[in-house]
C-alpha cells in the first residue's frame, strides 16, 4: 500500500505540470536507480528518497551535460529525457526521507 500513498502524494503535491505524468512510469524508471541508491544503506552513494525535486532535476541535467563527473551517473543520465527526469524527481521527492 506504500505505493498507493506515494501516488496520492504525487498527484496532490505536484500540480498540473506533473498531474499528466505517470507515477508508474516514475516508479519503473526508479528501479534502475535503486540498484545503487537505497534509503536503508549508509555509504557514499546517497539515498534519493525525499530528495528536493528541483535539486534532483538540476543534478541530473548536470550529469547529462557531463558537467558533473561520475561516469556511471553520466551514462544513466544520457538517455533520460526532461520528462523522464521530472518523473523521477516527482517519484523520489514524494518518498519518505530515511531521516
Amino acid at each position, binding site marked *: 500500500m506504500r505505493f498507493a500513498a506515494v501516488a496520492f502524494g504525487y498527484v496532490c503535491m505536484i500540480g498540473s505540470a506533473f498531474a499528466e505524468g505517470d507515477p508508474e512510469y516514475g*516508479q519503473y524508471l526508479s528501479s534502475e536507480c535503486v540498484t545503487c541508491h*537505497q534509503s*536503508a544503506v549508509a555509504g557514499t552513494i546517497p539515498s534519493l528518497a525525499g530528495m528536493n525535486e528541483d535539486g534532483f532535476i538540476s543534478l541530473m541535467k548536470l550529469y547529462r551535460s557531463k558537467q558533473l563527473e561520475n561516469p556511471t551517473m553520466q*551514462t544513466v543520465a544520457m538517455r533520460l529525457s526532461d520528462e523522464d527526469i521530472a518523473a523521477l524527481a516527482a517519484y523520489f521527492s514524494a518518498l519518505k526521507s530515511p531521516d
Partner: protein
Amino acid sequence: MAIVDRRKFTTGLLGLGAVSAGLNLPAYAQGKKPRVVVIGGGAGGATAARYIAKDSKGAIDVTLIEPTRKYYTCFFSNLYLGGLRDYDSIGHTYDALAAGHGVNVIHDWAVSVDSAAKTVELGSGVKVAYDRLVISPGIDMKYDSVAGYSIEGQDTMPHAWKSGTQVALLKSQVENMREGGTFVMVPPPNPFRCPPGPYERISMIAHVLSKKNPTAKIIVLDPKEKFSKQALFEEGWQKHYPDMIEWIPASVSGGVKNINMETMEIETDIDTFKADAASVVPAQKAGAICDRAGLTEGDWCPIVPATMQSRADENIHVLGDASVASAMPKSGFSANSQAKVAAMAIRGALTGSKVFDPRFANTCWSLIDANDGVKVGASYKAGEEKIEVADKFISKTGEDAALRKATYEESESWYSAISADMFS
C-alpha cells in the same frame, strides 16, 4: 505426486476460469490469481521474485525455488578472498522476501519443467504449477573443458566460481602456501560469469601474498588473448605487485594441455608449471535445468530482448548468466537489471499493469588493491534480435588515488544497495 496449486479461489470462480480458458485470456481476465514460479534465488531470481511480489501487491502468487538457505554472493567474494570483507558479510537469507513481500520460498532443487502442463518438479517430488516461469539458475561448470580437471578436483584446485565454501577453501589454500611458492590461476574461456572476475581474483590474491608471502609468484595461464579492463589491471599489477604476476596468453603457452591433480602440475607447450596452490575455472554453460527445460541452443538460452522471454517458450523468462544477453556481460548487476524488465513484462501479461520501454544497465567494479577501485559499465536497450549498447564508460589508466578510493567506496555502497534490492 502432489500438485501444489496455490490458487485460493471459490469453486464459482474456478468455473468461470474453465469457461474462459478456451478464449485464451490472461489469468487475470479469467478471475484467477496468477502464479509465478522463480527458479534460482540469485541476483536475477531474487530480484524478480521481490519486484513481482512487491509491485503486484498480492495480485500474483510468487514462489521462489532455491536450494540454499543462505546465499553467498559471487560479487564481492574476491574481497573476502583478499581479506577485505568477512565471510558473513556476503551471505544473505530469504527471510525478508517471505515475511515482507509474501514470497513463498521453497528450499529445494528444481529437477524438471513440464512446459505443456506448466509445472516445475522439485527434488522432493512435489510439482509446482505456474502461469509464468522465471529461470535464473546461473552457471554450471564444463569440468571436462580442461584436461585432467574434474568435479572431484574442485577441492584440490577450487574453481570458486559460485561463491560459498569453495571461496573459503581457496582462501585457506592461498594463505597456507609455502614461502616463495607458486599460485597458478587458469581463467575460463569466453563467455563466462563476471568477465573482470578472474583478474580481480588475481589482484586480491596478490594483495594477500604481498603482505604474508612477498616472494611468492602468481602464474596466469589464460586461454584468451585479452581480458576485461586489461590495461587497468596490468597498470595496477605493475604498481602494487611488481614482478609477482605473470600473465601468459594461450598464444604464448599453447594453452593448458593437462592438469595432474596429484602432483599439482599444469602442463603447457612452453613449460610444466608446478603449483603450490591453484584455481582452475573451467568453461561454463547455463544451469542444467535450462537444458532439461529445452531452453538452450548450445550452452546458453536465447531470449527475446524486450521481455527476457525464452525464444523456445513464451511462458518462460530466462535471466542472468544463463541467458544470451548479447552485449550485456554475465554479472549480478546485469541479472538484477534484466529481472526488473522481466518483472514488468510478467505483471503486464498476468495483471494488465502498464508496460514501458525496457531499459537495462550494468556496472562492474573491480578492486586492484585496497582502495584502488576501477569500473566499467553501460546502458543498454532492447533491439529486435539482441540487447544493444546505448552508452558505455570505463575507468582510465593513470587516475589519481583519491578517485580510485572514491570508486572503491562507491562499490561498497553499491554492494549494500543491490543486496537490499534483492533480499530486503
